[in-house]
């Protein structure tokens, strides 16, 4: 379904399909809320995955 074979895929928590990681963003609000690792630019790096099967969008702290 997705073109790239490099990075391991996240499984959609709704339907079980593979998701595609297509975006990242520094979340400056997340430090206090989620205790994620600071990336040196004043926030926490989040990544966003989309499921082609059910359209679910997953947001998580970048591991």
């Amino acid at each position, binding site marked *: *379904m*997705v073109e790239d074979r490099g990075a391991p895929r996240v499984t959609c928590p709704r339907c079980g399909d593979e998701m595609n990681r297509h*975006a990242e963003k520094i979340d400056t609000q997340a430090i206090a809320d989620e205790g994620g690792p600071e990336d040196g630019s004043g926030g926490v790096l989040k*990544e966003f995955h989309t499921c082609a099967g059910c*359209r679910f*969008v997953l*947001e998580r702290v970048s591991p």
Partner: protein
Amino acid sequence: MSSMEARAKPLVIPVILGTPRQGRMSEHAARFVVERLAAREEVETELVDVREVAPPVDGAGEDIKIPAFSELCMRADAFVLVAPEYNHGYPGLLKHLLDTNLKEYIHKAVGICGVSAGNFGGTRVIENLLPVLRELGLVTIFWDVNFSSARKLFDAHGMILDAAYGARFDKFARELVWMAKVLRYGRERVPLEA
């Protein structure tokens, strides 16, 4: 997109009416937009009225998510904002509603229809919305629709009086649909490189 594909996986494009004010001309513009979009085979659309969604005003940002609205945004492939220009800016409630989501918008297309009583058709509200939409992760198209002289543009039943708007809107919709298809392909199939 073939007609079979269009039925199987339509492009979901909600139209957000951005003002709750009484006597709003933007409602007529938004209904016109919904009608034109709904006529396209590949598009599934609905009107989202900020007055009816009524986001709570005693919270902040994503803390006040409205489940039905967030779910619609997650399913959406693109958005149309119909925004009146108030003192050169956008309505506060529209911004407040948009701020309730983030991940639901990322790498999705958006087009803006400005509405104003004067001749400029909401050009300033459109310009003021652009940096907001970018920060929300949305991708703007570069066609707009400008509903000018709004008090004279619609009849007593809210029907548009200037037939030229049909062709203008269709050019806008054509680019929005193109962008929505391209971005959906990208979100679903093109990974961010390491």
